[in-house]
């Protein structure tokens, strides 16, 4: 069981990474949800023992490599985001599905905000509010996955 879950975690993370590697461009790029963070958050809620801050940091490094930016940007954003996710993970059992969506949305935005601050340090300009669109599409994707029957750990814990 444990082994099985281990594999499904890493296969899904791998799939998310491939999704990031797709040749996105133009509008699709500005709408692209952060697949990696979504998958990490999902496993953080479902299997906090196997997927934690360290996993997020490690996967963040790969995303850094794929985006070609400075090493550590996504890693740091994912680390801080997953930290907050872990803190509130136990309360999530009590959350309604709407509350859960707000929770996921704020985590996704937090990650983008951290990236924005890091980019601002590197001398880049704010791209306007469309910058936060990926958080919205990310939540939509989350909701679609939930409505297709994906158990996001709301009513099951320690499974």
């Amino acid at each position, binding site marked *: 069981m444990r082994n099985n879950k281990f594999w499904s975690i890493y296969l899904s993370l791998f799939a998310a990474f491939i999704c990031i*590697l797709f040749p996105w461009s133009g509008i699709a790029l500005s709408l692209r949800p952060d697949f990696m963070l979504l998958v990490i958050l999902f496993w953080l809620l479902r299997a906090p023992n196997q997927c934690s801050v360290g996993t997020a940091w490690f996967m963040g490094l790969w995303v850094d490599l794929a985006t070609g930016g400075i090493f550590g940007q996504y890693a*740091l954003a994912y680390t801080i985001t997953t930290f907050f996710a872990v803190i509130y993970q136990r309360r999530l059992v009590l959350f309604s599905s709407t509350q859960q969506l707000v929770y996921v949305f704020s985590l996704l935005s937090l990650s983008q905000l951290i990236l924005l601050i890091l980019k601002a340090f590197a001398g880049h300009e704010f791209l306007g509010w469309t910058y936060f669109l990926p958080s919205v599409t990310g939540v939509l994707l989350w909701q679609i996955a939930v409505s297709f029957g994906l158990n996001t750990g709301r009513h099951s814990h320690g499974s």
Partner: protein
Amino acid sequence: MMRGIHQNFDQQQAPAFFARGPSPLARLTFFTAMSLALMATDSRLQYLAEVREKLMTLLHPLQVIANAPSELYHNTDEYFSTHHYLLAENARLKEQALTQDIALQRLNILNLENTNLRDLLEAKQSLTETSILAEIIHVGRDSFTKKIIVNRGKNHHVITGAAAVDAKGVIGQVTRTYPSSSEITLITDKSLAIPVQIERNGLRAIAFGHGRDNTLDLPYLPANVDIKRGDKLVTSGIDGVYPAGLAVATVVEMKTTQDSPFAHIVCMPTGGIENDRQLLLVSIPEVRQESATGFPANAAPASKKNRPSAAAPVAVTAPAITAPAATSTKPAQNTKPAIAAEPAPTPSANAGSRPHAQQ
């Protein structure tokens, strides 16, 4: 085996609820520190360049997999393109080839003439640059930077610093090379500057990418600068990176305000920054080739960057005096010494149009 037992034991000892290892705060501190250290190392020191290269090699097969669907779509799309469309395209390309052939013939003659004139002036031969055709694999995934990745890399002798050019003009510069791909920073990226000249009057300037909308800025030019809307910017070639004379951008807006001593100039790139799949990577050879005509390369310093200096005009004017002597040593070039000897001093007069004779 041991591990399994250990895990079972561990789970019995502490409920899964608490078996989390170090506290989240400890993990946060540790990994944040790691990230900050990595960022500092990567942005200030060059240690990680090699690591990145190795990892990119690892990543390459994944990239190929990820590109497969769109690649397949493109291929099938081409396969099913209609007969009529192909005929039309063929006719158009033939016509284009014909007009370009004619232009090329003139270019050959002009090249020959240019070589002769340069010989007469003992000026350095212009460099023959090497070019590699590359195809865009994907555009950068970071919306803050303007970057594209192409499918040619170190294995195909792409070097960092090569200029990326399409049919209409310069589009960027190679900033990172990996074994089988390389990263091109577009000229619209905020961190890229490109030395340009106004085609109309030879005025030199440096164009900076704007970063957000696909435009270029020409900062630090005085408000009374002679630039008009519609002026064309071409590469000046002073930098030793871009070949001289390539189209870069067109001025679309020129504003002067009361409160700033500088003009506000916005330019639109001429190259198809956003809409091409193929491009050329043009690199100037590192070592200036020994002049093929046998002249010692003393007319201009052999350094890569001919910074504007007092030596440059001397280098141009001095050969003008000795030009007839130079022609006598080269019987092959004697076809038009009389014509060339007359206008020889003129390059120093309109020095702005020549890369070597800057100010």
